[in-house]
Structure formats: C-alpha cells, structure tokens
C-alpha cells in the first residue's frame, strides 16, 4: 500500500461506478436519502391520520399502497419511516465510528497500557450478545429513537475500534511513516496526516455494512415494540402491525418488509462495490 492522492481517488470512483450492483445500490440510497429529506412534502397523507372504517384496505387511487389496520396511509407511513431508518443507520454508524476511531487510534498508535485497556474493554463488550443487550437497554430506558441509538452504539463501536487498531498498527510500521517520524513530525500529525488516510479504506467499507446492520437492528427492536414509540412509523413496527393480518391483508407487512430489504441490499451492494474498488481484502 502506498499513499494515495487525488488521481487514485478518481480511479476508485471509476471502478466503483463500473460495479453494476454498487451503482444500483447508490441510486437506491440516493433516492432513499431524498425521500427521507422530503418525506413531509412527498407524503399524500398525515402518516398518523386514522380512518378506522377503511382499515386493511388494499391499494386504491387515493392510497397507492393501501391502508393499515387503523386506516393509516401505508405510502405516507413508508415515506416517513425512511427518516427513522436513515437516522438510525447513519446516526449509529456516526456515533460508533467516532468512538471506535478514538479508541482504535489510541490503541493502535500508542500501544502499551492504553492498548491493553481498550482491548480488554472490547473483549468484555464482545462477550455480550449484541441484540440481546440492545433489547435489555431499550427495555430499561424505554422506547425512543435516542435510546435505540444508544443501545446500538454501545456495542457498535467495538468492531470499528478493533478494525481501526489493526489498520493503524499495520500502517504505522510502513516506510513512509518511518521517514515522517525520522523527519521529526510530531506523533499526532503523523497519525492524522499519514497513518489515518492510509487506514481508511476498510473502515469506509465496514461503515457501509454497519449502516445496513443498524437499520436491520432498529427494525428488529421496533418489531419487538422496543424501538421508537408508537405511533411513529418505523418499518419494523409496521411489519409487526401487519404480521397479524398476513392472511387477509398481506400488503400491510409486505410493504415495509420490501422497503427494509431494498435499503439493506442497497447499502450492502455499495459496501461490496467499495470493497472491490478500494481493493480491500478481508
């Protein structure tokens, strides 16, 4: 591995876009972000407005994707639900990555007791089954978007910290780092300008998969009634609401189910594309 400049970035972008799956994934994610941003403008109805007498109605001219048990418009709920998924996906990765970056850099770059301390903490946290701990935390703290973020980030950072530590340890032994050190650059500068930029590729790839994992985890918690509080239209909660009517109104569960599938697949495809384009090996 060598230091990469702008030219190499252009090559990565070109390789990424040639990856058909990744390009499709990017398109879906771009659309998702746009929908999440513009949900209030795009939604034909208030996502929480009820019309009890038309509960479980199928698709119609006014309700394109049909209505749930309480007569709420599924399309509007789906669009608003994208905001929750995107917030949790990006939010969890942002928080986990920040903590992971600090812990991983400190461990990998300075080593010694700092490394020992962080890695033992990671070992302890990794001993917990992730989703069970998240369930326990949200059960104690109560259901809300913030608590879901806390629950998912509390263990989420561990993976990043270990990955970053390994990357930093590898890169810091390379010749260009040695020469930077020999030329008298202070350690913090070496870390920020020389080590990190060359350690980022696998971290970017991992983060993309991390977004997909967080979205699935949020849907799982909401499905169990531990995610965001009702009546917020979380996709997971919508599946749970529709689950009871699978045999009479399958669309109620299928619509959010397909949305989760498409979103997670898009992020995973992007991750695959990035991995190939950046030539990251597992």
């Amino acid at each position: 591995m060598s230091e990469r400049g702008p030219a190499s970035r252009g090559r990565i972008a070109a390789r990424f876009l040639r990856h058909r799956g990744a390009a499709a994934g990017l398109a879906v994610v771009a659309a998702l972000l746009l929908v999440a941003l513009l949900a209030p403008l795009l939604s034909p109805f208030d996502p929480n407005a009820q019309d009890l007498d038309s509960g479980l109605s199928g698709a119609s001219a006014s309700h394109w994707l049909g209505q749930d048990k309480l007569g709420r418009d599924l399309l509007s709920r789906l669009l608003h639900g994208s905001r929750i998924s995107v917030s949790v996906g990006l939010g969890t990765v942002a928080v986990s990555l920040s903590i992971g970056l600090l812990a991983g850099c400190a461990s990998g770059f300075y080593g010694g007791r700092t490394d020992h301390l962080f890695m033992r903490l990671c070992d302890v946290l990794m001993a917990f089954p992730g989703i069970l701990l998240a369930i326990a935390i949200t059960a104690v703290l109560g259901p809300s978007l913030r608590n879901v973020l806390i629950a998912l980030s509390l263990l989420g950072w561990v993976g990043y910290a270990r990955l970053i530590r390994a990357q930093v340890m590898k890169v810091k032994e390379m010749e260009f780092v040695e020469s930077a050190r020999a030329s008298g650059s202070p350690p913090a500068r070496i870390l920020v300008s020389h080590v990190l930029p060359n350690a980022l590729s696998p971290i970017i790839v991992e983060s993309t998969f991390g977004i997909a994992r967080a979205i699935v985890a949020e849907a799982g918690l909401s499905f169990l009634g531990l995610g965001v509080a009702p009546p917020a239209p979380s996709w997971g909660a919508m599946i749970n609401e529709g689950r009871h009517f699978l045999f009479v109104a399958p669309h109620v569960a299928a619509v959010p189910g397909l949305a989760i599938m498409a979103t997670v697949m898009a992020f995973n495809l992007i991750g695959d594309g990035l991995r190939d384009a950046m030539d990251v090996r597992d």
Partner: protein
Amino acid sequence: MRDAARIFLAASLLAASAVAGCAPKLPIEEGTLVIALPGAPTSIDPRLATDAYGEQILQITHAFLVKRDTAGNPVPDLAESWEERSPTEIVFRLRKGARFHDGREVTSADVRYTFEWILDPKNRSPHRMTYDAISRIETPDPRTVVFQLKEPFAPFLVGMSRGIVPAGSGARGYSPVPGAGPYKVDDFRPDEAISLSRHDGYHGRTPAIAKVLVKFLPDSNVRFLELKKGSVNFVLNGVDPDLLPAALKNPNLAMEEAPGSNVSYLGFNLRDPILSDVRVRRAVAMAIDRETIVRTIWKGHADPADSILAPGFWAHAEGLPRIRHDPAEAKRLLDRAGYRDPDGDGPKPRFTLTFKTSQNELRRRIAAVLQEQLRQAGIAVEVQSLEWGTFFSDIKKGNFQLYSLTWVGIADPDIYHYAFHSAQVPPDGANRGRYANPELDRLVLAGRREPSRAKRKEIYRKVQHLLSRDLPVFPLWINRNLLLRDRRLAGFAITPDEDYTSVKDLRIEGRTAAPAGKGTP
C-alpha cells in the same frame, strides 16, 4: 431421453400418491380433541396458579367444592350440598364416591388439607388473602367439612371454586398434582402442551372424548393456521376478529358467539395533578369513541361497557348513566377545568398525558387509536409500550397517568373492595389509581359482610353509580366470547368468564365435508 422423462414422471406420481395415501390422520379423526390456548400457564397447581391459562386447565383436571353456573351462581361439584348454619359457619356435605386420578377417594381431610396449605404463610400461595376470612376448618366425618369464619364474608362460597388436591400433596413445581376432575394429566411440557386423558373414576358423567391435547400457541397466526389445517379443533377467544371471515371459509370450522364478562378499562391516576380533577377524567372519557373502536377494531364482537360488571351478572346495576362520545362537550369540560387549548385546533395541546401499555400488538393498536381520539380533544398522549413485567410493576407502584387493562373472571362484586377501597392500594389490593372515597369504603365493607343477595345487589348498585360519577376508571368495552371449533364438536356451553369446565361435555359427532385436497379415489 423421452423414455427417461416418462419413467421419472410415473415414479413421481407413484411417490406422490403413496405419500397422499399415507397422510397421517388428523387427531380428531382418531378421537383426540386438540385445544389451543393463547399462552402457557405458569403453574397448573390449583393452590398456586393465578393466570387465566392455568385456571382454565384446572377447570378440566380438578374438581372443586362448588362450581359456578353461567349466571355466576354456585352449583354442586364435590360438595353435593351446603348449609349456612350461621353467617360465620358453613357446612359442606361431600358426595360419595368421588375419586382422585390416583384412585383415592376424596374425603373431608383432602379439602381441609388443600385450604390449610393455601393459608399456611410459608407456602406463599398467591390465593392466601382470598381465604383470609377462614378461622378454622373442621372435619367431623370423612364427608363433612365445616368452615368457621372470622366474620361474615359474603363472597366465601364463590371462592370455594378452587381445585381440591389429595392430602399430603406438596408443591411439585411443574409436575402436576392429581385432582378429581374429568381429565387426568398424562404429560405436561411447560410452554408447549399438556396431554390429558379421561379419568374413569370421575364422579360426574363420563366424558365422551377419551383424549384431549391442550397446545400453548402464543402466536395468533399459528393458531389460525392450525385451526384451518385441522390440527387444532377448539379455540376460545384466540383468533383476531379480522381473521374470522377467512377462518370460516373452511367448511370444517364453525363459530359460536356468546356474551362475555371480561371488561377492558382505562385507568386514571387520581394522585396526578391533572387527572385528580373529575372534569378532566370525564372529558377524557367523552373524547373516546368506543362505538367506532368496537365496530372497527373488534368487528362488532364487543359491547361498550358501563360498569366493570358485565350486564348479565347478577350484581350489575341497571340504569347507569352512559358516557357518550362528545368531543365538543369534552373540550368545554377541559376549558372549565382551566385547561384551555393554547392555539385552538392547532398543534399545541392543552396538556400531555402518558399512556402506559404492554407490548401486546392489540394493546398497542388500541393505544394508537386512543392517542388519536384524545388528540382531537386537544390532549396529547405519549404512548409507552413496555415489557409486561415493567408495565405491571409501574401500574402497581402508581407510576403512571393513564393505562389500560382488562378485568378477567370477576366472580363476585367484592371486586369493588379489592379494586377501589382506599386501603387496597398495591401490593395488598388493586386500587392502582389511589381512589379514596369514605362513602365507597363504607359500602364495599358492608357489601362483603351482607349475606342477603338482594341487599348486596342494592349496595353494589350504589357503588356502581358512585363510580360512574367519580370515574376512577373508565369501563371501555366487554368482549364477546368467540369460539372457533371443528364443526363435528358439540356440547360445549360458553360461560361469560371463559370457563373450560364444559370441555368434559364435548363430543365428536358424525363425519363432515372431506378436507380440501383429498378426493375419493
């Protein structure tokens, strides 16, 4: 090549017909009845069981001193007769020849043992307080039991519907304790199923069905599918009203509907500064459109309630004022109580209340509807759906503003003492909203000491009027009992309180339409 294809086709057809020919028979075709319960019991020991599923199994496996008829009146079971020698002395005469599943005859010593075991504090029976009025149990001969009470206690007889166990039976965790009911336990797999077979020494009419399997199926989709498939034949109140039309498309299934007694209610915390004002509670009640909920969520299989006692119950008061859905009047009441809407019909609420509920999907659905209906009166509601243990512990601690629960199996109006007497705050009682009214305290104490049913009815009429004025809880609706059963099953009498005693009366009648997909050769 074509020959090979033909041979393959022929072989496949042969294999398919062989499989179809050997298809296992459904249990009901071999004389076994399969019942599905929507949950698993935590105990099937009559001295310890508290949940509805445990009680329902005990109604099949155990015999009681007295049972209750559909109107809630005591009728003989192990006791062939009883007599009140005085308001504090009740004498039961046991029937001759009643036997436990292990063959032993049921005697007065067994009855005494059962109740003394419950009353012994070291056994920690959850039913101890129910029998707190008992001071002494005497057994002058093997067929006579005399209960001496500390004071007159009107609900005493109703409390005698408790399964009797053989003297000397210790609590054995999950392993079943013998009873004297129509069916004995062959195998109990906690959280899965219980297999029962006919008790040949049963003192009543011998059950027609030799084997009964009770499956615990918490998932409504699974219950629905198993019913349709025929691997479950009997589900009482376990199929979502929205799925009933789809279930009844199956020619082998039939539905019976009967009045129920389980009352869902909205609980208020009367210590809360906002909800302590009766005008606010009334406004909340008036903002709720129960007719629409009954019509749409329950598909008409429920009725709006006016009391926590069901209309068919003997103590239910007639002529209680009915709270109508009237959002305009609700807003006026809130204005008068000093909670004006800061921005008219705009998004700002008059105030925000927290509504706690369990994670049950149906409960959450109802919470979402109440939230929306109260929003239209300017009351913001934050719904907290909590894990059951947390939810129930919060309710008991008084850590709530609004909650909703269902009273199940009310057998005596003495429930008003348990749920509304000012001294019955949890953990001792169920006055979770901390209601305190000296007039009500006096009435419910009088009610439990009064032996005459006519006089009690009058006392509880006053109680119900008082409560519909003060509104410490708002009775929402009473669900009707819905039985989905195999068309061949007959003889079950549905009681308002979902009693399973009548399982012993079930019989399998003649044949019916062949299941879909199985033609005659």
